[in-house]
């Protein structure tokens, strides 16, 4: 059977300590790999402000897993059941990725979309300083 890529985003409560957060993430990581899933990528956004409060909390730890698994296996069901049982999980979203999404995520992982910091190049900065000086002289 063909393998499919899945993506799973969870929001964990902000009241967790560093260790509890790591434990929770570890347990889900094990759940994925233990059920025939192959972890491709994971991302932690850290404490992020949410657009609206969930369970009276305005921030949350965002954790993203991307994994490949057999299509039709029960891994997603098991994962979501575990999310629902876990009170630390405020929200979850699991998606099947289509081919365009897989290409996009591949590029994203390689840093193709990271915004290049717009810092003035030394020449421009110098030019600015020099113009300022000129103005002062005038």
């Amino acid at each position, binding site marked *: 059977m063909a393998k499919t890529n899945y993506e799973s985003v969870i929001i964990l409560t902000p009241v967790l300590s560093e260790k509890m957060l790591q434990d929770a993430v570890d347990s889900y990581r094990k759940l994925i790999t233990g059920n025939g899933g192959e972890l491709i990528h994971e991302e932690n956004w850290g404490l992020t402000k*949410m*657009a*609206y409060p969930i369970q009276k909390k305005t921030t949350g730890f965002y954790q*993203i897993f991307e994994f490949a698994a057999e299509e039709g296996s029960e891994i997603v069901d098991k994962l979501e059941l575990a999310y629902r049982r876990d009170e630390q999980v405020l*929200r979850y*979203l699991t998606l099947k990725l289509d081919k*365009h999404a897989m290409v*996009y995520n591949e590029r994203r992982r390689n840093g193709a*979309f990271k915004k290049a910091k717009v810092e003035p190049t030394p020449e421009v900065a110098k030019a600015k300083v020099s113009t300022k000086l000129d103005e002062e002289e005038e």
Partner: protein
Amino acid sequence: MAKKSSYRFSKAPVVRPKKYCRFKKSGIKYIDYKNADFLMPFINEQGKLLPRRITGTSLKYQRKIATAVKRARHIALLPYVADQMK
């Protein structure tokens, strides 16, 4: 009088630049729901989806925007309702 008013209503049509679909033009195939900033041009100040006739998006990509915005709302990256978000 009647002649004058009818003249007034038959103004020459305003010439606007032709709208285009920005996804088709730049070759974007997938719209990422995790990137809230990217979705901002397609919603109004209240967080509602803007119609196609304003953004010029083609139907195919408008549908993808709609799902992406809904997913972003679910994981609290965009609000369901807002007063002033921009």
